[in-house]
């Protein structure tokens, strides 16, 4: 027999894996003897295995991640034991997951959402990993991977930009030019309206796309630093600067597709595919809706136009996905090595083979196999002075989902009520940010 004191005090992993298999009902009766019986089988102590919790549940990314782990096994002989959950469920349960017996390494997002769990002590700092991999990443990515305490907690894998997408053929046919300033942008919208196009496709039924529009206008108008302060709850939503951003938004709202609150982003993207709309501000995942290769070839984008010359187009919204280490990894030595591997361009290459709408987070990556769209996205992100993540990743998720999403839906329909809307946002923000 083994030295395990009792079934109930077994170390995490075997108990968790068992519980998952046995199921709640059986645990009441048969679970406890089973636990003590199998306690010593030793998945916990296995030095050749690292466990990894993954939210990549869609078949294509799932396969792409599996390819990375297979390549790692070939290289190092270490098995990555992947526990994949539906991505929405993974996000909704992240709290209890990280407090229970999480896997050694887990997939997550950069930015505030990472820092939140780091500050709660639910992740392990990985400065040792970054000593090896910091040369692979540009400064902006390094900044994204640090917690509030200045330590590293995150290894980025891939990223994608938000920008204004359009069809080259439409612009060529009508003689439009890519606008770089706000005035050009407005003029272009007016021209498109004259040409019977919907200037800006828009669908906000899922309530998050509007957050992206606000982000762009706000950091172009007020700069990266103010945007970060606003997202972190430090700056006030009743500040005149915020009001100015909303005024600019109200100026272009009439050029947005009508009935946006009832439309999904997929339907809005279809109007761009069918050339009924001229432009669409969204993440590069909009390319997923271009199923015909010729249409995809025709898709292009430009950075959201400059509003204040002091800030130009220096900020790019580039949500970044990657990995973190949980608070008490069972196999820390190997988890560190795995993260070192995941921080190489090599691992990123394997992933990106299957996801043509994202780009490498590393600046040392081989971009020769990129499509024109990817190349442009890559240049835009690596040339950025600052990177933002998206409002629901840069701010508290409870604030964005319960306050900002309904508030911005309301603004889209009724831009005149902006003052009372902003003071309502500010009041609610204060209580939410005070509560942690």
């Amino acid at each position, binding site marked *: 027999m083994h030295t395990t004191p009792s079934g109930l005090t077994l170390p995490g992993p075997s108990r968790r894996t068992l519980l998952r298999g046995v199921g709640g009902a059986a645990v009441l009766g048969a679970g406890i003897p089973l636990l003590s019986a199998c306690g010593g089988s030793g998945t916990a102590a296995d030095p050749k295995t690292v466990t990894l919790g993954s939210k990549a549940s869609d078949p294509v990314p799932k396969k792409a991640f599996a390819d990375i782990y297979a390549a790692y096994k070939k290289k190092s002989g270490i098995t990555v034991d992947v526990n994949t959950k539906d991505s929405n469920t993974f996000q*909704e349960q992240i709290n209890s997951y990280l407090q229970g017996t999480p896997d050694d390494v887990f997939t997550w997002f950069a930015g505030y959402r990472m820092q939140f769990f780091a500050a709660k002590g639910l992740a392990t700092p990985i400065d040792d990993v970054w000593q090896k991999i910091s040369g692979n990443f540009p400064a902006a990515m390094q900044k994204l991977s640090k917690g509030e305490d200045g330590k590293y907690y995150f290894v980025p894998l891939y990223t994608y930009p938000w920008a204004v997408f359009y069809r080259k053929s439409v612009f060529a046919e009508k003689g439009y030019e890519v606008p770089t300033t706000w005035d050009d942008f407005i003029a272009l919208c007016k021209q498109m309206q004259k040409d019977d196009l919907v200037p800006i496709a828009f669908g906000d039924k899922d309530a998050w796309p509007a957050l992206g529009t606000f982000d762009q206008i706000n950091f172009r108008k007020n700069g990266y630093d103010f945007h970060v302060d606003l997202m972190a709850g430090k700056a006030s939503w009743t500040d005149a600067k915020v009001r100015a951003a909303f005024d600019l938004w109200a100026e272009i709202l009439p050029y947005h597709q009508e009935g946006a609150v*009832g*439309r999904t982003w997929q339907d809005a993207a279809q109007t761009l595919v069918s050339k009924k709309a001229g432009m669409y501000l969204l993440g590069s995942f909009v390319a997923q809706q271009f199923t015909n290769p010729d249409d995809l070839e025709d898709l292009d984008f430009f950075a959201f136009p400059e509003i204040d010359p002091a800030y130009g187009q220096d900020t790019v919204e580039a949500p970044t996905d990657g990995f973190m280490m949980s608070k008490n990894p069972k196999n820390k030595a190997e988890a560190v090595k795995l993260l070192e591997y995941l921080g190489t361009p090599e691992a990123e290459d394997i992933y990106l083979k299957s996801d043509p709408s994202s780009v490498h987070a590393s600046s040392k990556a081989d971009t020769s196999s990129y499509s024109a769209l990817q190349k442009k996205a890559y240049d835009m992100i690596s040339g950025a002075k600052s990177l933002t993540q998206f409002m629901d990743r840069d701010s508290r998720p409870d604030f964005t989902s319960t306050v900002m999403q*309904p508030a911005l839906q309301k603004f889209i329909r009724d831009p005149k009520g902006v003052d009372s809307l902003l003071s309502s946002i500010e009041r609610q923000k204060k209580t939410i940010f005070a509560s942690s």
Partner: protein
Amino acid sequence: MSTDITKEIPEAAAVPPPGAAPARQKKVPQGHRRLLTRRDRLTLGLMATLPTILHIALVWVTALASIALAFTTWDGIGFDSIQWVGLQNFKELFEQNPQFWPAVQHNVIWFVVLIVIPTPLGLFLAVQLDKKIKFSRFYQTAFFLPVVLSMAVIGFVWQLVYNPDTGLINSIIGANEPGKYIDWIGDPDLNLWAILVAASWRHAGYMMILYLAGLKGVDPSLREASAIDGASEWQTFKNVVFPTLRPTNTIVLVVTIIEALRCFDLVYVFNGGAEGTELLSILVTNNIVGESSRIGYGSAIAVVLLLISLVVIIPYLVSTFRKERRA
């Protein structure tokens, strides 16, 4: 004797008051001590205590815990981060949350509409089907079919019908072009009514079946008697049939109240509770489910929902028990 025992057990398990159950369970073996073997008593004990424990743990403890949590703020990470804040959650809810009062209002509208439109419609359909017209079975099935579908499926189906660009309605009336849009899903003046059409569509079928069952129980001699007295069809219905449907009406009322308070899945799938369709149940979910959740605040909303349910349910229970006692 064994029949006696089996009668006792479900009662002990099903009667909710936690204090009463163990007492009753003690009484049972005592009264029949000599007739029950040790094993019987053990089985009985297990059968009574296990459900009681489960009931207390899953119903009472959780309900009381969420009431307690309503006076705290908690992000769900570690029990030591629970902070007592008194009535602050409620104050915030009543004074600051722009979605709260609309949500209460929508729950009430939901109830009123269900009572005023689909319920009489269901009664009407039931009366017609009760007349043994041709293809009665076919009509019954057709009207009842939506009740069999899950609310989420209904939400999905109607969301396709109402889709502003490709939906059935806008396509037929030509409202899917720029300048003519009718935004059934997003426009707060329209979306609640649009979704209530879907809810009524289902509810009418439900009510029809309940009334149909009630009508089958009406004594045919009553109708004969009123026919002999020369009453018209409407008079018969109004003065003879409808009064005998009283028990059915009570059930219908309770079912409709429950439907109005728990409505969630339909709206959640339809448009996620956007402006115009906020509901208390959706606010609870949005605040509690997800990362860094506001569990205290969400619980406060749930408590409000609980209070509303109690206001409705207690008078009903009181009157039912009073009747039982009289009988």
